[in-house]
């Protein structure tokens, strides 16, 4: 029944990838938390403009949750493009159009690839050397973020071994000191900044997400700077009424942005369905060469995302999206 620990003094590294990866530094992350994360219940409500200005820096490693079509943090996403952030390194898991938008807008120069829609804009950037891609997969990316969210330097994983991506990544295949079997380990990811759209948050950042997700909580806990955009700002009394519904605790959050319809043209499940026209439009733009025109129509002319919603989308369409979301059960606390 029991197994004696092996007395070996070494663990073999059987194979390792040669890809660059965002630096692993759990102690550095801890020091950052100690110095910069506000453990007091002080309001952190601000505009998307202020949040992006204060918390997204050129060169940052950025993760955003879900994607442009599904509960994406699109108000903040637009603001990043509007402010012309540069040289972002993107956690490209579960993305569709997002990577192409950020790359063609000149914001992103490195992608850790889980999945993104291959598009002319991405191809061009690759060929012109404006973009570097590192190879992972969706779950490997979210497990890297989970490792970061646990304060660990790495995590063993059961996939990714044997792939070509492995060789172009930060992964290592080691001999498991407990079983002797080969096992892959991947470097933890602690992004500089996470951008997450949620259903409800209070002014301190206590946030509720309903429905399924990708790695919202993990990204919030793993990232140095966390921007939450919320469909609804709720009272802290409401948070305290049902603590089981809190997905992200305030102390991980740096900015809360009130952002109704913040996932337009995508869906915010339980609150509104997607705008199929808007979805097809961004798809067509990305799959063709239409990103600049798309940004010139939907992003750049507006001071704020709210202005865009008001002037470009209009209340009637927003009302229709809301009405189109017939499923409500499970999307409240």
């Amino acid at each position, binding site marked *: 029944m029991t197994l004696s620990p092996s007395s070996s003094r070494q663990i073999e590294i059987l194979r390792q990838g040669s890809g660059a990866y965002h630096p692993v530094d759990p102690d550095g992350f801890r020091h950052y938390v100690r110095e910069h994360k506000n453990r007091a219940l002080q309001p952190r409500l601000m505009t998307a403009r202020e949040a992006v200005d204060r918390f997204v820096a050129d060169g940052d490693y950025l993760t955003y949750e879900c994607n442009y*079509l*599904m*509960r994406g943090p699109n108000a903040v996403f637009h603001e990043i493009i509007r402010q012309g952030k540069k040289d972002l390194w993107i956690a*490209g*898991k*579960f993305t*569709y159009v997002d990577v192409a938008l950020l790359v063609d807008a000149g914001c992103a120069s490195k992608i850790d*690839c*889980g*999945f*993104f*829609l*291959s598009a002319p804009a*991405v*191809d061009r950037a*690759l060929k012109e050397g404006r973009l570097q*891609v590192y*190879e992972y*997969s*969706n*779950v*490997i990316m*979210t*497990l890297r973020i989970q490792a970061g969210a646990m304060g660990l330097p790495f995590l063993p*994983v*059961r*996939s*990714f*071994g*044997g*792939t*070509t*991506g492995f060789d*172009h990544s930060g992964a290592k*295949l080691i001999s498991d000191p407990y079983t002797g*079997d*080969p*096992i*892959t380990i991947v470097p933890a990811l602690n992004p500089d900044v996470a951008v997450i759209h949620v259903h409800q948050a209070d002014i301190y950042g206590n946030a509720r997400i309903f*429905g*399924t*997700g*990708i*790695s*919202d*909580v*993990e990204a919030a806990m793993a990232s140095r700077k966390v921007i939450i955009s919320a469909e609804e700002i709720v009272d802290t009394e409401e948070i305290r009424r049902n603590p089981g519904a809190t997905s992200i605790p305030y102390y991980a959050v740096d900015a809360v942005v009130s952002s109704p319809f913040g996932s337009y043209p995508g*869906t915010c*499940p*339980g609150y509104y*369905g*997607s705008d*199929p026209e808007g*979805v097809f439009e961004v*798809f067509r733009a990305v799959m063709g060469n239409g990103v600049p025109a798309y940004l010139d129509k939907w992003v750049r002319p507006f001071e704020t995302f709210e202005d865009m919603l008001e002037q470009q989308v209009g209340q009637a369409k927003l009302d229709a999206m809301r009405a189109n*979301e*017939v*499923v409500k059960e*499970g*999307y409240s606390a």
Partner: protein
Amino acid sequence: MTRAEAFSDREVAMCQVARLVEDGRTYWAAGGGTPLYSVLLGKKLYAPEAQYITEDGVIAPEPMLPFEPMMTMVASRAVYRALAWGTMNSAGIHAQLGYMDYGVLNTLQVDQHGNINSTFLGEYGGAGRRFGGPGGADTIAACCWRTILITDQERRKFVREVDFISSPGFLDGTPGARERAGLPEGTGPWRVVTPWAMYDYAPRRLRLMARVPWVTVDEILAECEWKPLVADEVQVLEPPTEEELHLLRTELDVRGQTTDAAGSWITWDGEKYIRA
């Protein structure tokens, strides 16, 4: 069940996969599109007690069909009436634990050992064309007990060695190659389904096991850059039924998104099926 008289190549593939769906088993359907439609078709017609998850960690939903365009994950209709809601990590971890019987995938390129390329055609880093990457397929192919791959029957898709292994098959095909790479023991590719054919592995090398009535083995092999093994007796697959197509067209792929660029159209001329 009535044999249908007109359908597309891709509809054929989805119907074949649907018939592989087993009651009481768990399926991880990659992304949206053909894998998810195939599993749903199988569940609704043949295996009501089959259960599935998707990359957003939804467990055993009873989706409100049809989906909104492209909204097959993190969308209320897609995750409707699930038994549990989760995350990408919960989906990945349940697969790591061995809870997922079957993974269903589609891809760009597959090789003789079932390795999958969805990343790069050509020499990586050199000239060539970049694609989207593995997405969830890497974990599906690594951790589900058996994987079913859906792809088109095109020469360039069946190769000796993929240019880039995005998601693992039997790797170099030697016994234990997956285990030596750290992958869970006893897992691997199980079937490849195209609009023309079905393949299994004998034991770690792709083998043509069945064909549709309207193409010959030679025609199939002509559409394989690298020739697979061929079973001693290549079975003949049943064409789609009216029931399958009705469900597919009215509840699943209602906008023809997956069948848009779905190859040829096959029709019954009164005596036999012919490809347009």
